[in-house]
């Protein structure tokens, strides 16, 4: 885990002072709200439906137990006893007082955390693989590059007022777990045949109103020239990205308008004049950062088979434990170790991604006891203990059970990604959380869920797509019609190496219809699937028609849907 040096710590401390002064000027009236707004957004402070919301950065999703404890204490002291882990690997607090934010930032700074650039039209928190450094399919550990880029982008003077927000994702594994192609810039790390670290650069992806997958614009870029190359790229975007229309301001629109080849050519032209500058990373910087991402002190342990693990449980626990091992425990690079996912998606009780103060404190303890005091946040809004000895999985399962985080639904229908929606977000067209809850309650049978296999269900309360509905196998989007809340369904979205944007199946539905619509879609899948075929493959094989027919057949009898269109 990266540890701040004197420079990082000083920067964050000085940032707290700067923001404190800005808040003070806002409160005394010398800084008008309109001019304060972008400043507070660059510090992750939104004004939401009910209160201020503070988004705290969790760079590339990596968290120490001490940091999690601080987050827990903040949720207790300044909020209402919980925090919300987001699809960009950050955490949000929903009930913040403006005048208390400087104190919160000061608390965060003590554990090497901050809220810098978690919002606003600047380079946002850099996301990465939640299994970085431990995933069995990894080519390169992306974290040193993520950290160097975190530093490079923090308070970058030239790119603090871009046309729109700017999101980087970095991936270093065979399987993409970062939705690389849905980012403004996706950096795919590899080693070349000489063993040198290189990056393929994808640009112009994003969700929102105009979902587009990014295009490859540069291959095999040496890792150390990333600062100059990205400077060139951002300079082209800063100068020519559209500023007349907020919906057309993302880099994806520029890349699309110019064409990826022309965009790449312009970046190349700009880069040519700065590529040899002293902006580029030095080997010494790599060395200093990379030494924080070496392997922890693993024991030499035997690989234990799942069967043996299951046998170690009491007879009446075996079925449940086996399910948990199957869904929530992932393969590790090191024999005898595994990564464990804690589900923050208990059925029907809380918002996906929410964790209470008590849970956070307890999970921090578990991280201390079982995983070298480290955790990760996934973009699916779950938590990961990445380095657990297999021999202690049963013990961990018992303890984690008490915190209600062992539901074995990872990757299944009820592992729902959902944005805060109309309950909190002032941009929402419709609520997301009650929909997620209703679906979880409808599909509460774990046996059935396991039989259905991998299905991703993602819900956004508006077209901004914070809930990633475009890349869910099933996507639900809140739409507004005549002041009423309706829900549009998309099918066929996918994240990962075969990333795809889902297609809208037709007119939208009322909230109360959604669980039944889901049931019809799922029944259709069950009817047509072959053996263990996953949902997305059945969908690809059959196309949208049978699903669509099933979804609308029963509905046509229900008058409330009549006339409701997206």
């Amino acid at each position, binding site marked *: 885990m990266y540890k701040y040096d004197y420079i990082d710590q000083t920067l964050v401390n*000085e940032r707290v002072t*700067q923001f404190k002064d800005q808040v003070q000027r806002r409160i005394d009236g010398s800084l008008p709200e309109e001019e304060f707004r972008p400043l507070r957004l660059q510090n992750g402070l939104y004004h939401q439906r009910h209160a201020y919301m503070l988004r705290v950065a969790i760079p590339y999703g990596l968290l120490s137990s001490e940091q999690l404890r601080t987050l827990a204490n903040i949720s207790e002291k300044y909020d209402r006893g919980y925090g919300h882990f987001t699809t960009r690997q950050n955490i949000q607090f929903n009930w913040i007082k403006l005048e208390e934010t400087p104190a919160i930032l000061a608390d965060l700074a003590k554990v090497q955390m901050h809220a810098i650039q978690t919002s606003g039209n600047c380079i946002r928190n850099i996301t990465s693989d939640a299994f970085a450094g431990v995933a069995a399919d990894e080519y390169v550990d992306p974290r040193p590059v993520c950290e160097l880029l975190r530093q*490079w*982008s923090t308070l970058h*003077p030239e790119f603090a*007022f871009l046309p729109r927000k700017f999101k980087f994702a970095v991936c270093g594994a065979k399987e993409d777990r970062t939705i690389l192609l849905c980012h403004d810039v996706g950096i795919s790390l590899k080693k070349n045949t000489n063993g040198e670290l290189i990056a393929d650069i994808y640009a112009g992806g994003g969700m929102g109103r105009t979902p587009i997958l990014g295009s490859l614009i540069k291959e095999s870029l040496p890792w150390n020239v990333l600062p100059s190359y990205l400077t060139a790229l951002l300079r082209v975007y800063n100068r020519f990205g559209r500023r007349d229309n907020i919906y057309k301001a993302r880099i994806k629109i520029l890349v699309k308008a110019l064409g990826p080849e022309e965009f790449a050519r312009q970046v190349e032209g700009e880069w040519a004049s700065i590529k040899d500058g002293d902006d580029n990373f030095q080997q010494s910087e790599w060395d200093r950062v990379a030494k924080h991402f070496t392997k922890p002190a693993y024991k030499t342990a035997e690989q234990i088979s799942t069967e043996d693990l299951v046998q170690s449980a009491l007879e009446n626990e075996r079925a449940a434990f086996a399910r948990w091992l199957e869904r929530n425990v992932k393969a590790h690079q090191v024999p005898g170790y595994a990564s464990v996912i804690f589900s923050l998606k208990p059925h029907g009780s809380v918002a996906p991604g929410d964790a209470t103060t008590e849970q956070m404190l307890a999970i921090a303890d578990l991280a201390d006891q079982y995983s070298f005091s480290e955790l990760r946040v996934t973009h699916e809004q779950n938590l990961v203990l990445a380095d657990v000895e297999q021999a202690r999985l049963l013990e961990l399962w018992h303890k984690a059970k008490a915190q209600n985080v062992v539901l074995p639904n990872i990757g299944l229908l009820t592992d729902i990604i959902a944005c805060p929606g109309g309950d909190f977000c002032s941009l929402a067209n419709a609520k997301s959380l009650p929909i997620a809850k209703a679906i979880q309650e409808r599909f509460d049978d774990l046996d059935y869920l396991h039989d259905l296999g991998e299905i991703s269900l993602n819900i956004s309360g508006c077209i901004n797509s914070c809930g990633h509905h475009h890349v869910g196998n099933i996507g639900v989007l809140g739409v507004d019609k005549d002041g009423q809340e309706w829900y549009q369904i998309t099918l066929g979205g996918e994240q990962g190496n075969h990333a795809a944007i889902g297609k809208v199946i037709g007119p939208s539905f009322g909230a109360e219809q959604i669980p039944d619509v889901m049931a019809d879609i799922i029944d259709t899948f069950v009817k047509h699937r072959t053996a263990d075929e996953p949902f997305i493959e059945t969908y690809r094989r059959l196309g949208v028609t049978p699903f669509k027919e099933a979804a609308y057949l029963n509905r046509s009898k229900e008058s409330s849907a009549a006339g409701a269109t997206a």
Partner: protein
Amino acid sequence: MSEHVSQTNRVLSYPKGGKPAIITNEWQVWHGDETELSNLNPKQKVLVPFSWWLMHGQAQVKDSTSELAKRIQEKTIGVWFAADDDILKHLDVIEAGKSIWPLVGADFPVFRDGRSFSTAALLRERFHWTGEIRAIGDVLIDQLILGARSGFDSFALRADQNTDVALKQFDLFSVRTQNSWRDCRSQLSNQLTEAV
């Protein structure tokens, strides 16, 4: 102050390697509309729009009898770049401008439009512009650090801005994690141990 000429009395000057100070402004910004340049006080230093320079300025540089040429000789003419001026399309004009203009400006039509940060960075990095670059337009206190690092060394503050707060901005950060026009990123010598 008319609509087509604007002047702020207070300019924050922050030369590279120097200290920030509030100085009296000698330059007015002419917006190039309606009134002819010749109607402006000939004693006053003027920043003309770059687009106007492209249309009218260049030709007159060679015509030594023109009023503009005289002003140029007296070093009382500079240009300002609008946020959407593509300066890279005019490499030779700007190259030539280096020996003509004592000052160039870059405009912030609204403070949250960051294009002129890149203009200043390009002028410094690409054109190796060593003269003064002034931020003009909606120039606010909280954007000063960004401007100073991108390449600006003077700021025509919007009239309502508090100069005391402005002068303190540059002391807020003693370290930086990326290179900029003023400084390289702060680097620990490898001997120094991790902090805190």
